[in-house]
């Protein structure tokens, strides 16, 4: 694949290294002259100096033949604009953007820029995961596909505790994809019995969350729907 990466900060540079290792053709674009020179020492012709929000800079980097554009500059406006232009003007098939400020995730969404990655938001979710003050954690929202993946800990008094997967009255389209018990995970079958304390990963339609929570005896998450990776 030919991949253009806008922004040669820590994220952009390391991403470029990994992708080059995987035999992809990569061009990095960096606006800061000093940073450009530092990275150029290592990546040589695979980095260009310029402002990736300037259309001619993108064109010089060969955006018309790019399979993917990754916008990981430190400016959310720039990342939104680069992704928007890549997708809508140059018809690049895949774009990935970084949201530096998770509050801007809704703007990315509104402008149709997706998928968006926010490190801050991911860390917030991990904190939620590590410090579960409620029983349910959103792992992934696939908004376009209308699916989400949740993790829920089965409560002592939950209707599901002691029942087999087949007996559970799960909503249509909801699937238990994995059960974590005593530190190891497995894919359950219809006759797998759910125990209190199990951590259950389930794929479901976003609207079915209350039903699923009720079955497993979890409270709804306070931060549900914040941000998206879909």
């Amino acid at each position, binding site marked *: 694949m030919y991949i253009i990466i806008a922004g040669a900060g820590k994220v952009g540079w390391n991403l470029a290294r990994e992708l080059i290792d995987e035999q992809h053709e990569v061009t990095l674009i960096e606006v800061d002259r000093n940073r450009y020179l530092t990275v150029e020492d290592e990546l040589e012709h695979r980095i260009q100096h310029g402002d990736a929000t*300037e259309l001619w800079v993108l064109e010089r980097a060969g955006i018309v033949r790019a399979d993917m554009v990754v916008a990981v500059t430190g400016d959310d*406006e720039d990342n939104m*604009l680069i992704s928007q232009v890549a997708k*809508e003007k140059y018809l690049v098939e895949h774009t990935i953007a970084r949201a530096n400020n998770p*509050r801007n995730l809704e703007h990315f969404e509104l*402008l149709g820029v997706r998928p968006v990655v926010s490190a801050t938001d991911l860390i917030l979710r991990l904190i939620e995961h590590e410090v579960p003050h409620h029983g349910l954690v959103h792992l992934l929202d696939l908004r376009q596909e209308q699916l989400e993946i949740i993790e829920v800990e089965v409560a002592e008094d939950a209707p599901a505790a002691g029942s087999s997967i087949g007996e559970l009255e799960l909503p249509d389209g909801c699937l238990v994809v994995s059960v974590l018990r005593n530190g190891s995970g497995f894919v359950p079958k219809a006759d797998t019995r759910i125990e209190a304390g199990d951590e259950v990963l389930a794929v479901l339609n976003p609207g079915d969350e209350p039903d699923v929570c009720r079955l497993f005896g979890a409270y709804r998450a306070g931060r549900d729907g914040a941000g998206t990776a879909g």
Partner: protein
Amino acid sequence: MFVVIVGCGRVGSAIAKRMIRQGHEVSVLDENPEAHALLEHDMDQTWEDAGGRFTVGTALEVEALHGAGIEQADVVVCSTDGDNTNIIVAQLAKKRFQVPKVVVRVLDPYRAEWYSEQGLQTVCPTQVAIDMLTEAVMGDVDVVAGDIG
């Protein structure tokens, strides 16, 4: 008319003062509190006494846009010093806040042209300068600077 102006530099402040003199309601948003001084330069009263509003905040922050009254705006002018900020804020104003008229300053002629094709009302001072300078070079047309403010 209620006008919200995002970005209070030379251009934004001059438009703000002109609009308020013409009797319009004007609310200005800028991340720099000191930008307020530009609104009172050449005015014989304070900006607030003249009926103007001034909010300190970053253009992409929804709270700041709310604070500036974007929901009631008849017109939004995006005149920060960043083309990309202006382009993104303009799209938020149109798509999220359904502002009827949005005018965007874009210095880069290429971005201005493309986003104008996408339905944004862009004004490109660089293009205007290119046209005027070319005309001044080629012909004997007198180019006179307009009134500021």
